Structures are given as C-alpha cells and as structure tokens.
C-alpha cells in the first residue's frame, strides 16, 4: 500500500498489514500494521541542512572522574568536526546551569577545548536547569532550514522538577526541537528519561559502560548531519470503535511511543527509514464489504526546503467471511514478536510497581523462556536474575531493570538497540 505521491515527494510511507482482509466476525479482532517511511532520492538535495546542537552535560559530583573526562573528550571531538553551517552550545548543570559555549559564538577549537577543561564536578542533579538553558540556546538560532537537537547526558535522578522538565519537552517538540536523553550507569530514572525523549520523537539511551559514550555521540552527530527530514509525526485518526492498542517505533532507536494518537517519530536520516508498528483492535465487522480502519496523517519538516510536508494515507481492508490464509511479511512477524517481548517486560515492571509480585515474576520467567529459545542466553539469564531478585527483595535492581528493559528493546532492532554493549 504505497502513498500515491511516492516518487514526487521527498519521502513516502508504505504500510504492510498482518492480514490482507478482515474477517467478518461478531467479536473484536486484532490487526497489526507496519508503516515504513522512506526518503525518496532527489537530485540536487545533497547539501545537508545546518545543525544546531545543544549538548547538556550533568556535572554533579557523581560524574567526577572517568565519566566527566569521557564526556569532555567526546564534546571536543564533536566541536572539531562541526561544518561551517553548524552551531553548538555546551551547557553544564548541577543545581544550576552554566552556558559554557553559546550557540551565537563561533569559538575556535582550542578556545572551546580550554573552556571544556574548566568543567568541575560538584553539586546535585537538577535536570530542568540544564535542559531549559540548552533549549533556550537553540531557540536563539533556530531557523526554518535548521535541524535542532538537544543531547542530554546525566547519571543521576532529578527530584521535584520532573513535571516542569516534561512540560518543557512538550514545548520543545512543538517548536521542532528533538531531545536525545542518555543515562550513564544505574542511578538515573529510566521512566523519566524515556518520557522526556519520547515526547519529542527522540531516544533514551542506556550507557552501562562509559567507553561506549564517545562512539555513540559520534554516530549520533554524524547521523544528525545527514537528516533528510525531521519532526516526522504520524497522527492516527481511527474510525470510531477502532482502538489503537499500542504503537512502537521499530527503527531507528526502538521505543514504545507515547500513549495517544500523535506519534512523534523523530528524524529520518538519509539512506535509512523509520518503521512504526501499530496494533489495532477492530470492533465486530460482520455486515460490510470493506472497512476503513484509520487514516494516517504523516507530517515532516524538510529543513533543506524550509517547508513542512503533509500527506494522508487511508488504511482500508475488504471484509470476507472465510479469509484465505495469506503469507505474513517476515519482517512484520519478527517485529511483532520482538515488540511483544519488550511489552511483556514493561508489564512486569508495572506489576512490580503495583505490588503484583507473583504476576511480575511469572511474566519475567516466561520472558526468559522465550529469550533462551531465541538464542539470547545472556539476556535470558539477566531476566531470571531479576525474577529471583524480585522474589527475594520485592523490588528490581536498578542495573538489572535497565539491562532487561533496554536489552529487550534492543532485540527489536539489533542495529539501533537501546542498550549499547
């Protein structure tokens, strides 16, 4: 099911479904759809758009030593690779924020390096302070032709300012600013950072080994330089009676999407695509020939052209009494399985939080069984260890909880896994 405008617009969406027809039934039925958004190759569009990047670094006491040193070196590397059209801000924060390098200054690299060397670790973690300063830096320089991105790096929990941070992320998303949130070590709040990133179409990343920070930042920076379109959003308008049960970004950076019908998908990189898996629950459809399930309103910002693209795709299927078994695209089947695994873990986390420990451990054991069967013994063992931990102490370990969560997400797209090895 291709968008009729494919070939003319700079990107297009195609949709695969788990069944080519709906079955006439007097009970609800499930349908999975996988939407893939791809760039169309255009002549003369080889000049990448300018990038405005805001790097927001936690400099609280716990960052002292290797963590801060690695962050500093990674930031230096990025600065030395900036193209003439790019701007960068470096913001550090603890209980308050300091703008170390501002987007409106074009510092020579040695000067920037000298300023980075002045960062000292001390104080607590107030993410709102840093995030707010980082977003404001982008607001000063953002233009219709720029790609605007915040990378937040933290190793701690913020207290009392979660709601204002999430509100800021919401505003940033509406202004076209995307946030990548990176958590180092075990102490950070994964639910909060997930939520912060998801609101903007960004990504939350678990860095359990500080050595992976530099390569990740480098990869992210190179990707951002090749953005084909950003602020990619699919708004799902369902037919009354149809429920969008879940939505999950399969690629890049696998993540469950924010609840609701406005699905922020982030940036589409040249030579890559965005894949979105949706699960619909369809009401009884017994007395009709065909049924419109939803309309997908796709919008995206095309920085190279300083314009926004909007298009709509209707998802409608015939209804038949006795459907003929049809092949399911292998990629869709694999995505549904892996997303189901990731959701099984999410359910176990909710069970544990709500005091349903037996249910949580049962779900973890089932998850571990599947992972063993799939040839993922290391992750399966981590899941079993968490199940044991949960039985003993009635709570997850911070490290295990994150390893399982980002590990199962990583299965969804091994190339762009949430957890870096």
């Amino acid at each position, binding site marked *: 099911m291709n968008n009729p405008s494919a070939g003319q617009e700079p990107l297009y969406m195609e949709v*695969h479904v*788990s*069944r*080519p027809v709906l*079955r006439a*039934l007097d*009970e*609800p*039925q*499930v*349908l*999975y759809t996988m939407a893939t958004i791809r760039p169309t190759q255009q002549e003369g569009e080889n000049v990448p758009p300018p990038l405005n990047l805001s790097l927001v670094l936690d400099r609280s006491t716990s960052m002292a030593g290797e963590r801060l040193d690695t962050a500093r070196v990674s930031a230096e590397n990025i600065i030395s690779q900036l193209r003439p059209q790019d701007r960068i801000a470096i913001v550090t924060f603890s209980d308050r924020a300091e703008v170390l390098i501002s987007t409106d200054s074009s510092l020579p690299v040695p000067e920037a390096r000298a300023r980075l060397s002045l960062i000292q670790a001390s104080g607590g973690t107030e993410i709102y302070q840093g995030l707010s300063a980082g977003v404001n830096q982008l607001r000063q320089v953002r233009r219709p032709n720029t790609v605007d991105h915040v990378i937040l790096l933290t190793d701690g929990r913020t207290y009392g300012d979660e709601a204002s941070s999430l509100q800021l992320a919401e505003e940033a998303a509406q202004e076209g600013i995307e946030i990548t949130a990176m958590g180092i070590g075990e102490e950070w709040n994964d639910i909060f950072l997930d939520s912060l990133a998801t609101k903007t179409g960004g990504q939350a990343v678990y860095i359990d080994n500080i050595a992976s920070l530099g390569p990740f930042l480098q990869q992210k920076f190179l990707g951002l330089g090749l953005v084909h379109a950003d602020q990619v959003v699919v708004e799902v308008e369902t037919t009354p009676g149809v429920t969008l049960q879940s939505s999950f970004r399969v690629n890049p950076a696998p993540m469950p999407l924010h609840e609701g019908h406005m699905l922020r998908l982030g940036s589409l990189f040249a030579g890559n695509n965005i894949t979105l898996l949706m699960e619909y*629950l369809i009401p009884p459809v017994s007395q009709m020939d065909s049924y419109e399930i939803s309309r997908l309103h796709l919008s995206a910002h095309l920085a190279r052209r300083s314009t926004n693209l909007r298009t709509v795709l209707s998802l409608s299927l015939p209804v038949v009494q006795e*459907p*003929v*078994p*049809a*092949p*399911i*695209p*292998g990629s869709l*089947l*694999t995505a*549904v*399985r892996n997303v*189901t*695994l990731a*959701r*099984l873990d999410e*359910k176990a986390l909710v069970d544990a939080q709500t005091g349903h420990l037996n249910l949580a451990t049962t*779900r973890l054991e*089932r*998850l571990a*069984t*599947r992972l*063993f*069967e*799939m*040839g993922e013994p290391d992750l399966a063992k981590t899941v079993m260890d968490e199940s044991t931990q949960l039985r003993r102490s009635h709570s997850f370990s911070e490290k295990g909880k994150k390893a399982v969560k980002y590990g199962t997400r990583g299965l969804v797209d091994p190339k762009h896994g949430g957890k870096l090895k």
Partner: protein
Amino acid sequence: MISCHVCHASVYYGTLFCPECCARVSEDASSPTNALPADKVEEIIAEKPSDGSRSPLQSGDSISLRVAGNNVGIPLFGQQEYILGRAEKGQAVIPDIDLNRFGAHEKGVSRLHCHLRFEGESLLAVDLGSANGTFINDIRVLPDHPAPLSDGDILRLGNLVIEVTRQSGAY
C-alpha cells in the same frame, strides 16, 4: 477469542503472539483450513499439465501455492521473495510462509527450507540447504542453483507436495 496453546490466555482473533507469554498463536486455531478428502490429493497431482504445455511463471503473474490435500491457495502477493519453512519457537529468522499447518514437520520440511524469488521475468526456487531436499517435478534443486518455476510445476519440500499455479481468479 482464541486460546493460547501455551499459557491458555484468551486472545483476540488475529493476534500473532500471545501478549501473556509471547508464544506464537497458532493460526490453526484462528483460521481453520478445509482438508480435502484423500482422493483429491491424487487429483491435484494428476491434473498437472504435461511438460510441453507449461509456461514459465513471470513476475507479473498472480501466482499461488497449493499444498496437496488442501483446497486453499497461498497467494504470492506483495513481496519479491519468500522463504518457505516452519516457524518454530526460538527461531531468529521466521519464514514468510509457515507450512506447519500442513503437517510440515512430519513431512520433513526444514525450518528454512526453500527460497522463492522473482528475478527479472522469472520466479526462481532455490534450496536453502534443507535436510530432505527441494524438488521440482521430482528433480532435485541444489542449494545455490536457482531453478525457474512454470505454471503447474510440483514443488516438493521433503515429502510435502505443493502445486505452483498461475491464479485464475482474484483472491
């Protein structure tokens, strides 16, 4: 609602993996196929046209696979290539066409048995190093040696017999 065969959770029709235990929900439970009487099996095989009348299948054709003993066709629709085999627990790559519901295990079909792909104008079959072999009209297809398929050819995976036909009606 249908029942997960592993954890017995009730799931909606159309569910692919059980949300409670992540087992593949059996299509048999959700989409029963009508088995033909045994004499129909002979009929399908007997009906195949003689070699001289076969025309090669082409990418624009509407092609379907029909397993001997079943009157349902599996249309090759929407993809350029298909892997035929058995979807089993713990498999990293799941075949595009899962033949489990046709007794594939008993008939010696491998998990990843045979690959069909449209190339240029032809539909090609190649064996994926299966244990019991892939045959077109009883001639073995070797791994890495794709062979073209014609209308009415009998594709055999182990002992599972599949007729490859150009579809007459819309499905």
